[in-house]
């Protein structure tokens, strides 16, 4: 239990750091965010200065501490202000529309990639020099390709030229969003290619990591002992070698999540997938600072939460995490 409490405390600290960074960015940046916006939209009247200030939340009266407290209060109530580019929509309503898309697509695809990669890593380590193992350098090429570039190519070849998949978007224009069968079918149809892109680009990383840890565990004496006892090969591989190699793999999963999610966001842009990535692009291209900052917070919190879940899984899988006092 103390392991979980420690981790929880850590994530709270991390969340607080992210919140604080987010608070200080507009205040610490050279120049003035309000002026930056004013200069980027030359047709704004000088009288708009106060309005933009209020919108960005930088013109708050009172001391810095006072601003900080009211900022935390706003975030706690999911009040991120108003979007500049899609006025008068609030930032939270925009986020509410896009989060489910990203969460479903990136979440499921990442888990699939992790499971498949770990499985392939086990096979590659157990059958060293076999065809799975030898395919690894080829897969590493896919991993090195920028997500969005592979997405571009796949979109062009499989969707535009071969008509195997729909071209971009989250769902077809002919269906009405909601919990009806045609819409869900269309959404699934539209998500296959983006999900496939995520899987193919990230699977090699999980595979390489699992293989390398697994190769070391296979050399351990307890694996040899398992074989010597005459246990069937599958049992030795899965229960002796893989189970122990899986723990570092899980920890790596939590730590690498930030990278994977970031890559997936850029990939969404290519597919015009109606998720947070696309929202982020529109925020960047229209200098929508409140939206950008809120997206940063949301993604950070999502990654922290996913890490907490990974830690819970570790407690289930690893008896040492349960018994050790100061587990770290």
């Amino acid at each position: 239990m103390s392991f979980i409490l420690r981790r929880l405390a850590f994530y709270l600290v991390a969340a607080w750091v992210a919140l604080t960074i987010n608070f200080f960015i507009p205040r610490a940046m050279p120049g003035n965010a309000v002026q930056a916006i004013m200069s980027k939209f030359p047709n704004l009247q000088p009288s708009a200065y106060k309005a933009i200030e209020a919108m960005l939340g930088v013109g708050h009266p009172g001391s810095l501490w006072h601003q900080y407290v009211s900022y935390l209060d706003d975030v706690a109530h999911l009040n991120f202000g108003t979007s500049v580019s899609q006025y008068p929509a609030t930032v939270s309503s925009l986020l509410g529309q896009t989060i489910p898309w990203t969460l479903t697509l990136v979440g499921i695809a990442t888990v699939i990639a992790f499971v498949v990669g770990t499985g392939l890593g086990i096979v590659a380590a157990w059958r060293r020099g076999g065809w799975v193992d030898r395919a690894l350098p080829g897969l590493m090429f896919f991993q090195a390709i920028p997500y969005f570039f592979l997405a571009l190519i796949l979109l062009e070849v499989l969707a535009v030229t071969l008509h195997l998949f729909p071209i971009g978007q989250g769902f077809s224009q002919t269906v009405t969003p909601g919990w009806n069968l045609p819409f869900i079918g269309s959404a699934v149809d539209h998500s296959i290619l983006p999900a496939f892109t995520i899987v193919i680009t990230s699977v090699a990383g999980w595979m390489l990591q699992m293989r390398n840890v697994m190769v070391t565990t296979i050399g351990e004496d307890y694996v040899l002992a398992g074989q010597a006892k005459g246990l069937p090969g599958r049992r030795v591989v899965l229960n002796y070698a893989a189970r122990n190699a899986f723990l570092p793999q899980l920890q790596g999963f939590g730590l690498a999540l930030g990278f994977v999610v970031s890559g997936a966001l850029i990939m969404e842009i290519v597919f015009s997938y109606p998720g947070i990535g696309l929202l982020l692009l529109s925020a960047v291209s229209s200098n929508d600072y409140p939206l950008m900052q809120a997206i940063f917070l949301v993604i950070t919190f999502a990654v922290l939460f996913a890490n907490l879940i990974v830690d819970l899984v570790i407690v289930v899988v690893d008896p040492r995490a349960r018994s050790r006092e100061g587990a770290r």
Partner: protein
Amino acid sequence: MTVVLPVSAEPSSLSVPPRQLGRWRRLPTNAKVGAILLGIFALAAIIGPLVTPYDPSFQNPSPSLSLQAPGAAHLLGTTQSGQDVLSQLLVGIRLTLELALIVGVVATVLAVIIGVTAAFLGGAWDELLSLLTNVVLVIPALPLLIVLLGYLPQRGQTPTILVLSLLGWPWGARLIRAQTLAIRSRDFVAASRETGEKTWRILAFEIIPNETGLIAASFVNTVLYAIGASVALAFIGVTDLSSWSLGTMLYWAESQQALQLGAWWWFAPPGIAVALLGTALVLLNTGFDELGNPRLRDAANASTIAGRRLRPTDPTPVLLAEPPRRGRVGGFLRSFSRSSLLDGGGEQR
């Protein structure tokens, strides 16, 4: 990879062949391929901008030169506004590599300082620095980069380098801290402390040289991260769009619809360059891993014994199966094979 065992060779004849070549040959294949690829890119980055056939930004007004497929005059074709793709690529490789290398150096130095300090000071300092490391590690870098760079009045090379470096060190710092903790308790460190060496001297001459491999690996990883992040940032337009890097090439190709126009020679070269550069770095790193951990080395020097692939580092195999029944000729031939040695020889029927 062939491994020559120096069993029968006389000691004198062993040292005669050029050692550099021998060392190169002993490198894992992955590392060799990676190093060669990286060398080609480095060469392109160094001499590329000197030999570019055209000014990469020069827009040829002649409409016949718009979107020209690769040919003699333009080896990689032209963009929509008649710019030479090859020139852009050569200049772009330099800018991207330059940025990645600087970020790699700065972030790795930060990682070494923070990792070594945390492990060596211990106690509350270690707690604090480890906490900092883990927090920066767990906060997703790309959205933060976008917000930070989005606020900057001008988006150039320098702010990007600065911000990428500030977010790129924790992975390395974590590894280096763990390694330093392991080395710190070794005898030679205790010995140098007994002889009155100063702390900075112990750090600089006893501990850090023992972490060269790890530092090199984390440098390569950081360069990889810097390339990926800078290209992604440029792709969504958070960069100085008037300069030519692999990322801005992709940005312009995407925003001017190179793909829809069928101009593969426009968007493919920068993408493939990034991918090859990334592959080279990943291969190099795998090679480093293999150098440090013999178990990971490729299976080329394995031999097949009793139907199993075995490497020299493997434990002695435990074989369950009864020897297969064979005909008289097969059994006779088998008695010469290596597997007969393992299964206790001959077949008792």
